[in-house]
């Protein structure tokens, strides 16, 4: 079966035809999906502030934002991959190994190395390598990204526990710690780094060929191949960025807890995926973006902090978050349901 007539290609055509007829409704639904999460976020903040005034304080706002920095970095990277209709599960593994590596290269308690910035770069490169490996194996050998990244997830964890010295390497490089401790406007440098990354990625998706092709690849990979676009190169590129950002997130975590940790990535993946989807990026790719993901991340941050403020039984919290996840996505995509939609 050749690309031009592969099922997904046909499916897109069918969809276009149907939406095309009633595009007015389609765009309305689409608009709703874009602002929906934002509305919910605003609503949630208002309600929480009313019930629990302490929530509305500047201090708490700063806390929420600071804690959102790392998820923001992870989820932004993931967004690129999801926009292509792929998935990257390896974040936790990459974060773990990059955390250990960076903690062993900057001034630390378990060896005599003190590479400073160079150490950070090495860790970033490691992350990039993970991402590249994901993309290359996935694209070059036409393997489902879910399986490939599932593999690299384990590889990352393995590498981390292999490199882990007998004793946890505590960071003694004050400059490195500043990443987490230094603050501007009460917001840590890490947060600002995250913001810069977000802006950079938004611009990339909007104004570069690479970015536009990533967006196009979701529904249009087959067509791009026909048009002679080197899709594999772009796929690998996107995965590499995603890996690099996961690595950065690992480094940030290290700076934050002041020590290298083989569990630096623990429980980062599924929240990140949730954030991406809650924001309104389709797992099938093609629609969504970084800004949506930012909203998604903030939503989750506010929910978890809100549950804490409301003093909800900690055991119940994840149950609530689980329901919220389904509820929000369902609510924001409700209008877009179609009788013949392909629901994966």
């Amino acid at each position: 079966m050749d690309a031009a007539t592969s099922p997904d290609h046909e499916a897109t055509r069918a969809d276009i035809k149907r939406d095309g007829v009633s595009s007015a409704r389609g765009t309305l639904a689409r608009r709703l999906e874009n602002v929906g999460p934002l509305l919910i976020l605003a609503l949630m903040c208002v309600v929480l502030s009313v019930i629990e005034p302490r929530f509305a304080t500047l201090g708490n706002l700063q806390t929420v934002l600071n804690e959102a920095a790392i998820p923001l970095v992870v989820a932004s990277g993931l967004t690129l991959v999801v926009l292509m209709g792929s998935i990257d599960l390896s974040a936790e593994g990459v974060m773990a190994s990059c955390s250990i590596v960076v903690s062993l290269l900057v001034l630390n308690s378990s060896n005599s190395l003190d590479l400073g910035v160079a150490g950070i770069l090495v860790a970033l490169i490691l992350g990039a390598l993970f991402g590249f490996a994901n993309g290359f194996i996935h694209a070059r050998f036409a393997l489902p990204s879910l399986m490939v990244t599932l593999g690299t997830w384990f590889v990352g964890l393995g590498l981390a526990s292999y490199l882990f010295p007998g004793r946890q390497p505590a960071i003694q490089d004050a400059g490195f710690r500043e990443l987490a401790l230094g603050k501007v406007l009460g917001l840590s440098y890490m947060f600002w780094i995250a913001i810069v990354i977000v802006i950079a990625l938004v611009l990339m998706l909007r104004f570069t060929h690479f970015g536009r092709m990533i967006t196009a690849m979701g529904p249009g990979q087959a067509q791009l191949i026909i048009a002679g676009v080197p899709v594999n190169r772009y796929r690998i590129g996107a995965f590499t960025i995603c890996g690099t950002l996961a690595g950065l997130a690992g480094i940030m975590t290290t700076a934050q807890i002041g020590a290298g940790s083989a569990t630096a990535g623990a429980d980062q993946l599924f929240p990140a995926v949730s954030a991406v989807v809650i924001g309104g990026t389709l797992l099938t790719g093609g629609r969504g973006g970084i800004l949506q993901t930012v909203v998604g991340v903030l939503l989750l941050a506010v929910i978890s902090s809100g549950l804490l403020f409301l003093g909800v039984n900690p055991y119940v919290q994840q149950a609530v978050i689980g329901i919220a996840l389904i509820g929000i996505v369902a609510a924001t995509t409700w209008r877009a349901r179609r009788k013949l939609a392909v629901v994966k």
Partner: protein
Amino acid sequence: MSAPLIELSAVTKKYGAVTALDSVSLTVNRGEIVGIIGQNGAGKSTLLKLLSGSVQADSGEFRISGEPVRLGSTADAARRGIAIVHQEQSLIPNLTVAENVFVGRSSGATRGGFYNWPALFRDGDRQLAKMGCDFPSSAMVGELTFIQRQMVEITRALSLGDDSDDHLTILLDEPTSLLNPGDIEFLFAELRALKQRASVLFVSHRMDEVLSISDRVYVMSNGRCVAERDPAQCNEDELYRLMVGEERSDDYYSSRRKSPTVPSATLGPPALSVSGLALNGEFKEISFEIAPGSILGLGGVVDSGREQLARSLFGLTRAPAGEVRVDGIPVRISGPRHAIRHGIGYVAAERKVEGVLLGQSVARNLTYCIPDRISSMGWIRRRRELEIVNEWISKLKIKAPHARADVGSLSGGNQQKVALAKMLSIPHLKVLIVDHPTRGLDLGAKADVYEQIRIATARGMAVLLLSDTLDELFGLSDNVIIMKDGQITGRHLDVQSCQPQFDQVVREMV
């Protein structure tokens, strides 16, 4: 007179044992529209692939303006000024028109991989203007109508002229197979206007069109170029004979097999009667009847709402307001399952998406609608299943290696027959809605499909026909209604005995 723009001499292409192109020779001169006709499998698409660089010839010569070339890729071909417009639309829905026009190559507006949107849209609008398109190049392709997207396709092809010094050649692969008369006329006008800027290779199996637009016609059959004709001095029947190798029966739409339509009054209630049907935004005030054993043609352009009407009758849209009666009994259809239960069947236009289940066997495809007949208490009775399946395979002369073959491996025509049989095999089926049943099929396959529709009506089936061409619509139907903007604008009764004026029909449509 300089060397021809494109010249193939004795080009041969083999896929394994199969010879797709067998020493084909043809030439395309500057400013010429060359038509190529042939049945599916005649080698047309391979020829296009070869010209557009996606496959390379095993032997033979390929010259562009006299110099021998070997095109490695579509991009390669593009550089040499050869652009292809695919039958399967190759636009990306979530990109803007401008991006789609320039996809795969860097224009001034995207230098160094960075987009200068205003510039890009300016370029895009300029290209669209050449085609006289009225929509902005900043529009999302996903929100365009079908014909608009077809225009974008052609615009993209034309825009190649700018960054290629060679004279432009445009390969059109079945460009009209999904268009309706008005649009086709428009497209042809555009093509003629193109002549001074580009040569066109027009591939189709609609002879009327090829004859009307081309300056020269090549006829292909089993990978060979069997004839070259001047449209002025040949007629459809001759071309048909050259293509199929047999005389075309004057009873093309097999109307002779048609059972004499008795006035529905004496025959009790109509199989399907619809009154005051309305679906907001799609259509309104739709009323008609179909007597058992008769065919009602439903004409109209793409956005006329006829497709939505057909789909709503099968429960594929939100439930419409108004009354639907099957055999005089009012029914409420909330989904395909109800429709089928009430004896309404539907053969989808999007064959590969909704018609057949690719990747599943012919047998399974044929039996999805009749689980009760092939199973007892949910358990498949394979022998019974096979009997039924083979019965229909032979009834419809479906050409499949065997019942378990992947339906995806069948030719378009046979896939369509499977889709038909799937519905016809429903024992209690009373009404069959056929949505563009011959879209993308070659003549032989078309004839078979027509025959099957006839046989169905002969057994008392009522058929609602949506068709691409007016020929087909009026050749096949007993009565025809025309829709425009969601309303019925014309009714033509018993068109077999008195054919209405086509230009009048077209007026009712647009």
